């Protein structure tokens, strides 16, 4: 009985953690030299449902995207947003 309850708790907890975790995606981008023009990157990402916040670092040439809990943003979604804003993706890294 005790084992059964523990198993149920474990299963519930893992399900919950899968649904609730948010991603932090770091995208290295080419061409980001103008803060006015790069505003388009922020606007393009924020139009997507699953995006919580976007930060642009012109020094490091990276865009950091935080997704909402449980939301998924694929690499192709990320690439599409960067290209729609007029820039090129160098690399994409993810932190759960």
């Amino acid at each position, binding site marked *: 009985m005790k084992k059964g309850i523990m198993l149920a708790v474990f299963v519930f907890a893992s399900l919950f953690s899968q649904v609730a975790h948010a991603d932090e995606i770091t995208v290295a981008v*080419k061409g980001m*030299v103008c803060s*006015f023009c790069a505003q*388009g990157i922020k606007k393009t990402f924020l139009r997507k449902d699953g995006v919580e916040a976007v930060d642009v670092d*012109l020094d490091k040439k990276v865009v950091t995207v935080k997704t909402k809990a449980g939301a998924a943003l694929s690499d192709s979604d990320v690439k599409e947003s960067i290209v*729609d*804003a*007029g820039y090129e993706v*160098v690399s994409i890294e993810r932190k759960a």
Partner: protein
Amino acid sequence: MKRLCFFSLVTLATTHYAAANPVSFKGGYGVMPAYNKDWFDVQLNYSVTNRYAVGASSYYREGRDSTSEFGIGQVNYLVKRWNELDSQANVNASLGFGGRHDSVKGDGVAVYGAVEADYETRRLYSQLSAETLHSDDNVQFSRYRARGGIAPYKAMFDELNAWLVMQVDIMPEMEDSVRVTPMVRLFYTNFVLEAGASIDQGTPFVAGAAHF
């Protein structure tokens, strides 16, 4: 001859990209007004993709003999963009068609053409552009522009970004046909403001841009 051909191409295609690229991001709206004592431009556009935008523009010009107003519907096209880690360069072109009212020659049909090339890093900025408005009865206005600028500091994404820019305008049909204008160019989030005055006449220049 080659030089003449190149100059003619630039002339034929020719710009009024005062403050910003005429194509922004997919789904973005742009507003670009520019004011001088004897000319005024305003363009509203919508970027259908990151490569082309459609828009409507109004141009006011005080020539030597008359005053003209143009209403133009136009397409702006990003011909080529070079995205590098520390720089970006662009070539844009615009074509438009519309109408004109001239204080002496009355109403007529008008066409608009422009080309623009720019290169910038976070500290350096340069731009060459040319534009022409042609209409019935040989009413036409052209403008050839060169710009160079430096940013005194590297601004972060959400900070006020300041540039010191020198602009040279050649406008053969205008009274004051060559103007050299030092100006300050400021970015803050999705807004640009430029303000200066020409060296010889002190003619004020104000331009802006916003993307939404």
